[in-house]
Each structure stands twice: as C-alpha cells, then as structure tokens.
C-alpha cells in the first residue's frame, strides 16, 4: 500500500540549540529555542503554527511550548512512542497531519538535558516494581544485571559477531567514520576531534563486547523541525526537503531494546518493514539513495541497518564499511553530521535535520549530487524511517 501523502509534504525548517554536556538551561527552554529557530529558518510566525507532534519521552508538553512561543491555537497534537524510535515517527505523524489538513504548519522537537540531568546510560537501577506491563518487562532483565542501553544492544552485537564473524574493529570503523565527519562540523560536540581505529580499540570496556567509543555521547540540546505541505513549503524562506515517505515499523515479538526471543536476533525486522514501505511508497531502491543518516546510539546496529535497507547483503556490512563506502567520497556517506556518536545524541532528530541539509546541499560534509537521503530512527525499538528528497 502506498501512502497517500508520499511526496506531498516537506520539512520546511530546521532549528537546533547548541549541543553540549551541560546546557545550563531547562529542557523547556531548549525546546522553545529549537522551535523558534526552525520557524525562523522556514520564515513562519507563531500565529501560523497549528500542529505539534512530540516524543513520548520528551518532558516538554506542547501546551508549555505554546505558551512561550506564543502559539495560540492547535488543531493537531499527538505523541509518538518509543524514544529514539520516534525520530522519523514524528515526521511521519506530522506529515500525515498536514497532508490530511488536520493542521497546516506542524512543529516537532526533541529537547533534553540527557547529559547534565537524566542520563540514560546510568541504567535502570531504581525502578519501582509497580506491575505495569513495561515494568514487568524490565523484570525479565534487570534482576540479572542487564540494566543499561549499552548492555541491551551488546547482546545483539555478540550474536552478530558470532554468526557473521564481525569484530570489534568492524564496529570501530563506524565510530571512526562518524568522528571523521563530526571533526568537520562546527555544531558537533566532537568538532575537530577525529579518532583512529587504534584509539577505538584502546578505549575501555563499557559492556563487553562494546567499548566506550562504540557508544554515542550523552548530550544536552534541542532540535526542532517545521513540517508542512510541499505546496506551502515552496513559498517559504528555505529550500524544502520533500518527505518522499516517512514510515513506522514494529514487528513480531517486539520488545523495548530486548527483542531477544525471535528466531534470529542478528537482523532488524522492523527496519526491514520500514525499508519495504519506503521503497514501495517512493518507487526508489537502495541504488537511488546517495547518503544516509543511520541511527547510531551504538555502532553495532549500524551494520544490520545497511543490510536491511539493501545497501549490502546480510552479514556483509563489515566489508561494505571496511571498503570506505560509508565515508565522504564513498558509495553511501553515512552520518555526515557526525551522527549521535560525533555530533550529539538528540534521539535522532538531529539526524533528520542533517537529512534536510543534505537535500539542501548545506551539510558541512556535503557529497555531490544528493537527490535522496535515507534517515532512520532508533534500532532495537519500534522504529521509523524516512526518505527525504530534493524538490524536482
């Protein structure tokens, strides 16, 4: 089934705060600043905003954002679940809303002080055992000391290494590529700070087989997008990035970060579901994509993403990466902003903004002739993905 809004909406504005380890201000302020910048980028005013779509884990309610932005009426507001898995889910939701006429100018954002206030990497030690289904789920892992996002992902990584012969160095090459790109992006936390594979290999263990440099940063910051119909976007200030399609995916025996009970745990079926929808909606294939922003909270799951989207065969991502394909100048430059490893961890929404820049031709690591960019949301959770394209 092809989505009726495919290719009919666009990201018309992007805006972000600085990315840091200590923002020195509230998450609400970060959200509002990012939204304001996205509106300015698009050239829209608060009175035009009538839709807002937020992440379930974002603590900044649309009504609070409205009060500070001066937005007086909303005709659509909704919320997308599953943390970083919502990165393109909010785009999907906003695009549906503007395409259907539920609203005309929709803001989406993600803002948090994930480093200076609530660190996800600290793990889930203090969960009260209230018997909600989500807490019950944690009961199958937390008592055994499987408590952090890194540990949840490491379980997939170990099995992937076992089945396909991938090594820690193969994961390291993802980090090296991201940091190389970040080194040339002034907005990146690791601007001017590339790493070598040797440094990756020398970095300390977080959860074997994952090292420190396999993990993305923990960041403070906010990122917002302004989404509207393509027709409206064409009359706004900045070059629109066409949302050729934005989709969500959740699959059999889906769990939060711990879908360990499936036949195989080395692939990402929910990503495959997204890929199939995106390619069906757009008529494009992997061959038509010139650059990608692949969710990189941890390096190992970048590999099966390349496989699920058809850039290489199953188990062969390590060769694809080793051959330099994901670096600037390669077949598919990945995470040209530096990714969450190099730029900032803003639950993937900063990656969507990079997708917009790639389409506009304004990335600090701009490859030539970019028509279509793939952007993905978090792996190991119910997820989402989008293809952003140049307006022809």
């Amino acid at each position, binding site marked *: 089934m092809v989505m009726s809004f495919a290719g009919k909406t666009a990201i018309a504005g992007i805006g972000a705060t600085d990315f840091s380890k200590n923002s020195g201000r509230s998450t609400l302020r970060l959200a509002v600043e990012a939204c304001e910048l996205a509106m300015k980028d698009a050239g829209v005013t608060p009175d035009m905003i009538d839709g807002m779509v937020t992440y379930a884990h974002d603590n900044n309610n649309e009504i609070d954002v409205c009060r500070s932005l001066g937005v007086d009426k909303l005709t659509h507001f909704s919320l997308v679940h599953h943390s970083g898995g919502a990165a393109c889910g909010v785009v999907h939701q906003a695009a549906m809303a503007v395409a259907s006429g539920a609203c005309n100018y929709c803001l989406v954002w993600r803002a948090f002080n994930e480093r200076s206030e609530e660190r996800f*990497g*600290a*793990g*889930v*030690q*203090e*969960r009260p*055992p*209230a*018997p*909600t*289904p989500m*807490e*019950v*789920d*944690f*009961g*199958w*892992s*937390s*008592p*055994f*000391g*499987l*408590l*952090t996002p*890194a*540990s949840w992902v*490491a*379980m*997939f990584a*170990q*099995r992937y290494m*076992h089945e396909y012969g991938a090594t820690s160095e193969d994961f390291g090459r993802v980090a090296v590529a991201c940091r190389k790109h970040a080194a040339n992006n002034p907005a990146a936390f690791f601007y001017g700070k590339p790493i070598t594979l040797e440094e990756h290999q020398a970095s*300390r*263990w*977080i*959860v*074997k*087989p*994952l090292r*420190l440099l396999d993990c993305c940063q923990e960041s403070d910051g906010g990122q917002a997008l302004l989404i509207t119909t393509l027709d409206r976007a064409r009359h706004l200030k900045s070059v629109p990035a066409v949302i050729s399609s934005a989709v969500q995916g959740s699959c059999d025996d889906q*769990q939060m970060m*711990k879908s*360990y*009970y499936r036949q195989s*745990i080395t692939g990402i079926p929910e990503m495959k579901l997204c890929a199939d929808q995106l390619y069906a909606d757009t008529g494009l294939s992997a061959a038509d994509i010139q650059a990608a922003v692949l969710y990189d909270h941890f390096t190992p799951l970048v590999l099966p993403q390349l496989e699920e989207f058809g850039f290489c065969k199953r188990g062969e991502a390590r060769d694809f990466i080793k051959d330099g394909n994901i670096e600037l100048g390669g077949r598919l430059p990945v995470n040209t902003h530096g990714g969450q490893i190099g730029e900032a961890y803003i639950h993937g929404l900063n990656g969507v903004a990079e997708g917009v820049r790639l389409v506009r031709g304004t990335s600090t690591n701009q490859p030539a002739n970019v028509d279509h960019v793939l952007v993905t949301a978090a792996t190991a959770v119910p997820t989402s993905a989008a293809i952003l394209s140049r307006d022809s």
Partner: protein
Amino acid sequence: MTSEGTRKMSNTNEDKLLAQLQALIGRKSAPQQARDPVNQPSIRNWCDAIGEENPIYTDPDAAARSPYGEVVAPPAMLGVWTLAGNIPRLPDPDCPRSCAMKLLAEAGYRSTVGANTAEHYSRALKLGEQLSGTLSLVEVSDLKTTGLGSGYFLTALTEFTNQQGEAVGSWKFRTFHFKPRELTDEERAKQQARKEQLAKIPPHLRVRPRPAVMRETAFFWEGCQARELRIQQCGGCGRLSHPPVVRCPQCGSYDLRYQVASGKAKLYSFVEPVYPPMPFMRYPYIVGLVELAEGTRLLTNIVHCPPELVKIGMDLELVFDDTDPELILPMFRPAQPVRNTVTRRFEDVAVGEELPLWPIDVSTRLVVGGAIATRDFEDIHHEVAAAKRAGLKDLLMNVFTSNGLCSRYLSEWAGPDARVSGVDIRLGTPNVVGDTMTLSAAIADKQEVDGKGVITLSLRGSNSLGDHVTGSMTMELPMGANK
C-alpha cells in the same frame, strides 16, 4: 639503635636463618612406611569421596579387561599411602622439612601455605604393594615477599618405593612459610574509604532490582522460590511463551499454564557489563541469553564459569542462586560433562582441543570426605571453628582432594584406560565450602614417548575468589586401533 642498625641486625639474622635452612638441603628423612599395603577398602573410600567411578579401581571383572588386568589404585592416591593416620606419629628428628619449619617458627615465620604440588606417577600401583616414602629438602628460597607476607619457600621431595625398592613415583611440594603482612597506611585508608562508600549506598541499591510481577507472570517467580524454572504453556494448544503473554497468540486461549523446564540449555548470546558499576552486582558477571531445551529463550546469569571461557553454544545447566534471601533467581552454569566410557586414542586428540568445563560444588561432604579419604586430619578440613580461626568463612578443601578431582576430571574425559602420569600445579585461592570450583583444561602438547602416547593438558580450577589451581597434567593415552 638506628633504623639502619635494625636492618643490619635483622639482615644478619635472616642470613643466619637462610644458612641454617640451606644446610638442610639434601638431607633425607627416615623412610616412612605405609601402615597398610595398597588395599581395596582405602581405594573404595577414596573413590567414594572423590566421586571417581572408573571401575578399574574397584571392580575386579572390569579391571581384568583393562590394560592392567587387575585392580589398580588411582594415581592421585600416591601420596596418601604413607601418611600418618589420625594418631600422629612421633616427629622424625631427622626430617629436614620438620627441622626447617621449626627454625622458621622460631624466627617468627609461623604461617604456612601450600604453593605448588608436583606429582609423578611412574606406573599404576597394584593391590598389596607396600610403599615407603623418603622426604628430602631440595630447595630453600631467599627471603620473599608476596601478597601474604614475607617468608621462605621450602621445596620437599618425597620419593616413593615399593617393598622391592622399585621407585614408583614422587611428590614435590613447595610451601611458603611467612609472617603475615600488615596493611600499609595507604591500603588501610583505601579499605576505610571503601567501607564508608559502601555505608552510603541506600539499602534498596544493595540488592538486585526486584522484578515487577503481574498476575499472569507470578507463576514464574513463585517457581523460582520453589526452585523450578517454569515456562508459560498454553492449556489449549500447548504453545510455550517467554516472556509470558496474557492470551495465547496461536490459539486464542486464556487458559495459560506452565511447564517445568528440564534445566538444560545452550548459550545463545551473552554480555559482560563493566560500566557503570552497579552497587548490587558482584563483578565480573555475565548476562546470558540462553536457549532452553524446550525451545524458548531466557535472560539469566552465567555463573561458575570464568568470563573468558564463556562461549556461544556451550551446554548449560540450571542452578538457583539464593544469595539474596528474598529473590531466588534461575541461573545457568556449564553443564556437568558426561563420563566417557570409551577411551580416547592418542591419534584422535589434537593440540588445542578444549575439554568441557566441570563445575564442582564445594560441599562439606566433599571437603570432609575428601580429607579423611586422603588421610588429612588438619582441623581446617573438618572443624568449622578451626577454619574460622584461620580467617576462612568455612571448611577448606585439602590439596589431595583437589588433586583427586583434577585427575578425575581428565580421566572422565579421556576414558577408563587413560592413565594420569603427572601433575604440576600452582595452588591459589582456597576452595571454601559453599563455593564452586570450575575445572577447565585444554590439550597443550602431545608427544610419543617410549612408544607411549603422552598428552600434556593445561588445567585450571577457578572459584569465586580466583584460581584455586593452575598448571599442567600429563596423561598416557592408548595408541593404535581400538582393541
């Protein structure tokens, strides 16, 4: 007296002591006669205590079919025969080891710990052989400082002969005689800081996170309390689900029951969390994703296994951990290896081959039974209060029992006709009751020696404190085609 003077004086004293000790090198004890010949009841008691089931030690019919043609004694019993019983012998005034220990004790080196044991078994001993052992001191170290303290290593060699004077084997035992080390100020401060840090941890973070339980998942946790691993099973179609569902997705039934798992599993994947440290976990630890024999998977801990030996695909068995009185958790450890009844041929084994791991629970029964069966009547092996006085939590396994278990481990892998010919191990952390020692080994070398197929295995026995034994053992395997 200046401090330098003290050192000089002390050095002079130490030099004198060392000279006295060295003077004992080469001196031999009076031959110690075994009180009884090699005999079936003692062998049977030893086999019972160690769990040795090779029939060539106890079953005349099976032994008749073996390469020996008759019952023989387990090689690891070599040192046992000439030991005194529960009635101590009069001390031999000529025994160089006793003399050395007396000198050391007078100089303040009163604590003793076994450091290395090396045994060589020339051939299998037959019933009726009358052994005699002569001990000589072969080596005295300089003053050494280890983690335990400062002192001297003594190496004693006991050579065993039978009634015809034929050499049948030897035992080299290296011991450390020391003054316990006092903590440095820095270490004391560190210890204090750690104590204070621990005191700051709130009670709920001193125990593992409690699972949240809902009506439909209670059966699992109740099962753990009853030491059963339960898998949800649909009463309608029999489908197994884990984690549990509230409605069978296959047949739609709400009649959800459970099946008790066999406890057999294979490791599917695993991780070793390192950072951030969780106050309620003991490091290192492994979180395993196991595939139960029944087909469902389970997150659990892999225990009784050194982390570096954990491998995807390894066979596992269920154990319940009840270190937390309110939360009994199902965990998995290496599965007990199956005793091999067909002897491996020399030609069929390869250098690098790894033996399956064998976790051994250090029980009071094993420690006390082993001590008595090896005629070791040191009180730390049978009297808990004595073990506690020695600073241990509970009874401590003696060296001969550890040796016996190592021999049994290799023999059960190699088969009944393989013969352990030598042991050379370093003794490390104590095997204390309540702990589990996991034996692991790999073939390090294989050589044909005088028409015999001799393999050398690297061996390790680790427990929760570290490595109890590390070293090598040699073994003779039959060569050529199976008879």
